[in-house]
Structures are given as structure tokens and as C-alpha cells.
């Protein structure tokens, strides 16, 4: 019998972790002589107080949804894909190729084409580490992180030597053609009579990310493939007994994971920058790990955690802009949140479990078995 009710597991634990991170962050801000209350107010108003703030928060959140889902699906197969960064980098290359070399008649078709290319490139980049893990037993953590560096080098080479427009000094591709520009939330909401900031980068790929959350939920919890992936993640020996091929599951889970990470590029490359630049991913691949940990690898959890991290990113940027809190401290605060929600999970969980247990023992002095089902 599980010790804690589900709501405590899913909501209470992350909330308390978050609170602890906030308290510690407040102490750090206090220690450098700034006002933590004012800082929080500024973060909230900066990230959520205007449609401009929301636009940025949701833009970051879209990135984190893709990379968070990527890590989550791999987690279900007990694979730790920390190569989201590299897979998203390659996804960007796929998007750039799709947008620059195919004359799309309309943005919607361009979006479909770019999504497919981003997914293919990301999946291809994950396929090599996956194959090495499945067939040779090379640890996926080592190989995926190596592939992050290779991806950065590949992008560098491609941008400098192949895709840079003639005469440009900037290691970036040309701007994407007009037909490949995605509508922003401003463009989408104005016809509905809702005014939304024109400057904010949140765009239609947010809807793709939400759709990916829903599809992944169906995949994990409702399909035969999801059943097999989870079974393999729980017990490899049992999976073999049931005739579930470890090689197949490792490959498939990693391909899906890589594709999801790659698909992030439709947001940052196609939706925001509208051209491919160096280091376009900006660490979102790694944030995805924290998002998946905090979201317990559940698509809904990933969705909520991605929005939280979007808020932290945008709020942090506002802090750096308007206060004398240095940029580095923002990173410290974000790190604290990752530390508490991701790594120090058990620190909160264990005492909480003990409290629930104690409470239950007080309520029911006898072992609380159902009276109708005497254990034989």
C-alpha cells in the first residue's frame, strides 16, 4: 500500500520543495543586501504581470515542454537522455534546411514540414547513442553528453562553412523566407479580440507542445508500446520474460525522445529567431532534465513544471534588468529550484511520508486492512 495519498505525492512534495528553494533564495538575496520581497514582486510582475511578460514566459515554457517530454519518455524506459541539448541543436539544423530550401506556400505547411524535419534530425542524433546502448552496452549518459559537444561542433562547421550567406561575418544562416514565419500569439489572438503584446516571441508552436504533451500521455498510458516501455523501465528481466525486446524498446524510446528534443527548434529557431544561429538552444536541453524530474515524468507534470521554469527564466531576466542583483545570482536561484525539486526530492518526501504514516496510525490503531479481505 502506498504510504502517501496521490495528491500529496504529486502536489505537496513539489510545492514544499519549491517553497524551500524560495526561502533559501530569499536568504541569498538578503545576504547581498537586496530586498527579497521586492525581488519576488518584480519577478511576478515581470513574468506574469503583462502580456509581454506572459509571452516570454510561455515562449521559454514551450522550449522546456519539448525537452522535458524528451527526458520524461526516456525516463519511463529507465534511460537517462541528457543529450537533449545536442538533439535540439540538430533539430535546429533540420528546421533551417526545411525553411531555407523548400518553398513553402503557407506557414502551416512549413510548420508541418519543419516539425517533421526537426523530429527526424533530433531522432537521428539520438539514434547513435541509443544503438550503442542497445547493442554494445555503452552507457547512454556518457554517449549522449558526448554527442552534445559533437552537435555543437557540427553546427559550428555547418554555419561557418556551408550555410553562412556569402559575405556575411555572422555565423548564422540567412533569414527564413516570409512564408516560413510562424504566427505569434499576438497574430493569433488579435482576430479573437484579445490584445496580446506584439513584441513577445510566444508563437503557435506552444500549441504543438501542448499537443505533444497530450499525445505522449496517450502513448505512455494507453498504448501497447507505452505499456512495453514502462514494463522495460520497471524490470528488464521481466520484460525479457514477456518477450519485450530490450533492443527495440531502447531504440524506440530514444528515437521518440530525440525527436521531441529536436522539435523544440520549431519554437526557438523557426518561431523566434527566424534563422539558425550558434548556440540557439541556450541550455534548454538541460533544463528539460529538471522539468522532467519535477514533473515526475508525467506529461501533465512536465507541462506545469515547464511553465514554472518559463516563469523563472523570464522573471530572472527582469530581475537582472531592473535591480542590481547580478545575472549570476539569477542562475543561483534557478539552480536552487532545480536542486530542491529534482535532486533533493527525498529530503522532503521522507519526513512527509513519516508524517502521513503517523497520522494514519493514530486514526487506525489496528493495521488497516480491509475487513472483508482477511489475508490467508
Amino acid at each position, binding site marked *: 500500500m502506498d504510504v502517501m495519498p496521490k495528491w500529496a505525492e504529486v502536489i505537496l512534495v513539489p510545492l514544499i520543495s519549491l517553497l524551500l528553494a524560495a526561502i533559501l533564495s530569499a536568504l541569498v538575496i538578503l545576504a547581498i543586501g537586496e530586498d527579497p520581497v521586492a525581488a519576488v514582486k518584480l519577478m511576478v510582475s515581470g513574468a506574469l504581470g503583462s502580456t509581454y511578460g506572459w509571452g516570454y514566459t510561455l515562449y521559454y515554457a514551450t522550449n522546456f515542454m519539448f525537452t522535458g517530454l524528451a527526458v520524461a519518455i526516456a525516463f519511463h524506459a529507465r534511460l537517462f537522455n541528457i543529450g537533449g541539448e545536442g538533439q535540439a541543436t540538430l533539430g535546429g539544423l533540420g528546421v533551417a534546411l526545411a525553411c531555407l530550401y523548400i518553398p513553402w506556400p503557407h506557414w502551416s505547411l512549413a510548420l508541418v514540414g519543419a516539425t517533421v524535419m526537426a523530429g527526424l534530425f533530433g531522432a537521428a542524433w539520438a539514434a547513435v547513442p541509443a544503438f550503442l546502448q542497445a547493442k554494445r552496452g555503452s552507457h547512454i549518459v556518457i554517449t549522449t553528453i558526448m554527442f552534445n559537444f559533437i552537435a555543437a561542433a557540427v553546427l559550428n562547421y555547418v554555419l561557418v562553412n556551408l550555410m553562412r550567406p556569402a559575405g556575411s561575418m555572422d555565423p548564422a544562416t540567412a533569414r527564413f523566407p516570409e512564408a516560413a514565419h510562424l504566427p505569434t500569439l499576438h497574430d493569433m489572438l488579435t482576430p479573437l479580440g484579445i490584445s496580446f503584446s506584439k513584441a513577445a516571441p510566444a508563437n503557435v508552436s506552444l500549441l504543438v507542445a501542448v499537443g505533444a504533451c497530450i499525445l505522449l500521455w496517450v502513448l505512455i498510458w*494507453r498504448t501497447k*508500446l507505452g505499456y512495453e516501455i*514502462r514494463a522495460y523501465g*520497471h524490470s528488464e528481466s*521481466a520484460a525479457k520474460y514477456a*518477450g519485450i525486446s530490450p533492443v527495440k524498446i531502447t531504440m524506440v524510446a530514444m528515437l521518440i525522445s530525440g525527436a521531441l528534443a529536436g522539435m523544440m527548434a520549431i519554437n526557438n529557431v523557426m518561431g523566434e529567431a527566424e534563422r539558425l544561429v550558434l548556440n540557439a538552444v541556450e541550455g534548454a536541453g538541460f533544463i528539460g532534465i529538471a522539468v522532467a524530474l519535477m514533473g515526475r515524468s508525467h506529461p501533465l507534470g512536465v507541462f506545469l513544471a515547464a511553465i514554472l521554469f518559463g516563469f523563472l527564466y523570464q522573471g530572472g531576466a527582469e530581475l537582472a534588468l531592473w535591480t542590481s542583483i547580478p545575472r549570476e545570482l539569477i542562475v543561483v536561484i534557478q539552480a536552487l529550484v532545480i536542486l530542491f525539486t529534482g535532486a533533493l526530492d527525498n529530503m522532503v518526501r521522507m519526513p512527509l511520508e513519516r508524517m502521513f504514516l503517523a497520522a*494514519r496510525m493514530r486514526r487506525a490503531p489496528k493495521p488497516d486492512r*480491509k475487513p472483508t479481505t482477511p489475508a*490467508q
Partner: protein
Amino acid sequence: MTASDTLGRQETAAPAIELKGISKAFGPVQANKDISIRVQPGTIHGIIGENGAGKSTLMSILYGFYKADAGEIFIAGRKTDIPDSQAAIAAGIGMVFQHFKLVENFTVLENIILGAEDGGLLKPSLSKARKTLVELEQEYGLNVDPDAVIQDLGVGMQQRVEILKALYRQADILILDEPTGVLTPAEADQLFRILGRLREEGKTIILITHKLREIMETTDTVSVMRRGEMTATVKTAETSPAELAELMVGRKVLLRVDKKPATPGEVVLDIKGLRVIDEQGVERVKGIDLQVRAGEIVGIAGVAGNGQSELLEVLGGYAVGTGDIVVSGQPLDLSGKHSDGQSRRRSGIAHVPEDRQREGLIMDYHAWENTAFGYHRDPAYSKGLLMDNAAIRRDTVGKMERFDVRPPDPNLAAKNFSGGNQQKIVLAREIERNPDLLLVGQPTRGVDIGAIEFIHQQIVALRDQGKAILLVSVELEEILALSDRVAVMFDGHIMGTRLSAETDEKELGLLMAGVGA
């Protein structure tokens, strides 16, 4: 402490161990409830009970792994606190675990001093230990070569090393947890002779087991545990196996299996020249021939690790082998594309694996998810790409009712069922597939006596429907009770096949040890 009071009748001497009112709860589960025992010095005291009765918890408290919620421990009349195993060793308690805690690539001597080294340098400890060890071996008649490497020794020898380890640490009280689980009958007899010798030398021994025969043959007194409580402590000479079984289960139990003589039909499983090489490159099955006919149960007897598991794994489709296997007239693919578990299921083979927790079930999956495990691609369980969860749940409810799974809750995770009920979930899934051939590995390992009866009846019922059953068990009694024919495996070979009506434990025991053919 003299050797004369071997039967513990000298109540005036302080008991070697006395437990008073020990209680221990794990969350809502009361593992030990107000347990008190006295064990006289120089006796062998048995503790018997079903799995989950609380025997291991009690011994873990005595050895300092758990802290009791309430109660006191007296060692040789002195109240003793045992916060950790160091304290237990200091109090003169030694423990021989079911799974040995030896470093495989160390010598016997190195293992003996591990954790009891004298200083930073190894050499002085080793020479001192060698001297002590030789003395100990002579005193108790435990012959082990101090320089042998553990991995070269048989299990019986390894167990002696564990006993020597405890004696080297000057244990007066020796606890043995299910010591015969991995031994042949002959090795077990040797162990009991050693225990007798230790008793003569004044050592106190606590023997934890679920085998009634061992209790009857070796102990002076016996305590019975049931659901965390000590239900009785009696002198072994004054009780009987039937009485002990009743005390363990709380009702009368059938110790035999009721079955009609078999009426074997066509050959369903035909194995010729099967060889299996494991992942380490060791040949585990060395060319065996075996047939199982419709309507018969063929039991594979043997000490664990003699190739039985690998035989089941090849038949079940998760290990590769060479040779020929024909099932219902169709040859099986032993190493190619169709050698996986899914293909085996399509060939009409169902499999109750040896280790239900590692193989047969996903412990974190709900009962209903486990009901589909291995058959999750069955059209009856799917709607296109999706799984038909409602249909699986309905099926689970029916299976739970027919196989008396308690509690009958399909939404409970497998890990929350008792061992016996977990096994029933697996059995229900495999038997109701109506297979031509059922593979059964260790059907009652870790299963309470009450459920054993039921599981045996189900297996016999399937036989009576004219199905072929291949049974692997390390419990010789179970093999003899269930099988119509018995094949004995030793070191990857089949040493001989006997009709179970025409053989006995002694003959099989010799075959299991590799003697005769």
C-alpha cells in the same frame, strides 16, 4: 555452560538468549507482536513459520539490523542492547544468512578475517587467523582449505566458511536462516552433523526454516510463528509434523497432493541434444534429451544452479541454445528471430517463471496490468494501437475470483499482494491461456502453506485436462508430490529419469549429487 545440559532441561542456568515482549511494526504491518522466547544454552532451537510470519524480522532484531519498537533482549542473563551487527557480534551472536556474504575472489582465510583485521597490515592478521582457523576446524570437524578461493568451492563448503566466520568471531550463539535451501539432501545431512557437533561443544543454535522435516530431525525445541505472533513453543520430541503444520497455518492442512494416476498421451515437448551457454560463456546445459507427454507432469529435480533455470529460459524464449526442441510437432527457433517470448506464447507455451518478482510480474504495475503481461498484444486486450484497459480489468476480476486472489482488487499494485497471491495472479494468467505446454518454475517458493495446496491443485487440474507440464523445483518433496515422472539434473546433464511412484528422496538425492545414473 557445560555440554551436559544439551536438552536444556537445566532451567536454573541463565538462558543463552531470552527475548521479552519484542514488537516491531513496519508502517501498518505488525511484523512481530509481543514475542518472548527463552533458548537454553547448548541446544538447537528451531523457529518455523510461513513466509511473512516474522521469523526473519525477529532474527534481524537479534542481529541488530532492526531496532525493536518494544521489548528487551537478554544474552546469557544480561540485558543487552543490540543497535547494530557489531554489537551483536560483540555479544557473541553469529549469523549465517540464506544468501552468503562472501567475497567470491578472496580465499577462505581472507574472507574469515574480512572486517576483523587487527591493524593496517594484512600479514600479521592472516598468520594469526590461519592458526586460529586450523584450531577451529579441528575442534568442530569443519574441513575447509584456508587457501581455497571461494568461487572454486561448492555451496556446502561456502556455508561452512560462513559458520567458521561466525566461530572466528567467537560466537556462542549461531543463527542459521533457511540454511538448507541451496543444499543437496546429503549436504544438508552433513550440515546437521556439524550443528550437532557445535551443540556438543556448548554452542547455542537457532535454526530458521519452513521445512518441517528439518525441525523434527535436528532441533531440541521449536517455536512456531504465525502472522507476527509466537503461537507456540514446544519440545520437538513431544510434537508431530501435522501438529506443527496446523500451528503454522492455523487450520488443518493436507500435506500430500491428491491426484489420480496420469494417463500420458502424445509427446508434446521433445528436446534433443539441448545445449545452453550463458552470457558469461559458461555451458550450463550440456546436451540433454527430454520428453513430456500430454497429461503428465514431468518434474526436474536438482540443486539450484545445475542448469534447470537455463532450460526453462530457453523454452520460455529468453535465452538462446542449440539443439532441437519440438513442441506439438512444430520445431522451435532456439536462437534466431523467433526465439523470443512472444513467439513461444504463440507456439502454445505458457510459463510460470521461477522468480515471479523479477520475471513474472512488474511489481509496480497494477494487478490488471499484470494480467495482460506477456499477452498485451493479444487482440482481446487491444483496440487498434491502444490497449483495451476496460476489457483487461474485466478479465482480471474474473481471474481473481476463479483463482481466489486476495484481496480481489485489480487496481492494487502487484507488490502489495502476498507471495502466494502474487503467484496466483501469475498462475491465473498462464493457466487460463489454455496452453499445450505449461512451464512451471518453483511454483511455491515463498508461498504460504495454505496457498501451496491451491496452487498444486491447479497444476494437477491442468494435467487432467490433458496438458503437458514441465515442473522445476528445488523442493524435492514438491517434485515427488506433484510429478508423474522425475528427471534429475546435475551439472547440466540429466542424471536419470524415474517414475515418481517408484523412487524416493534417497535415490533422487544421490542423483542430485551426481552419484550413479
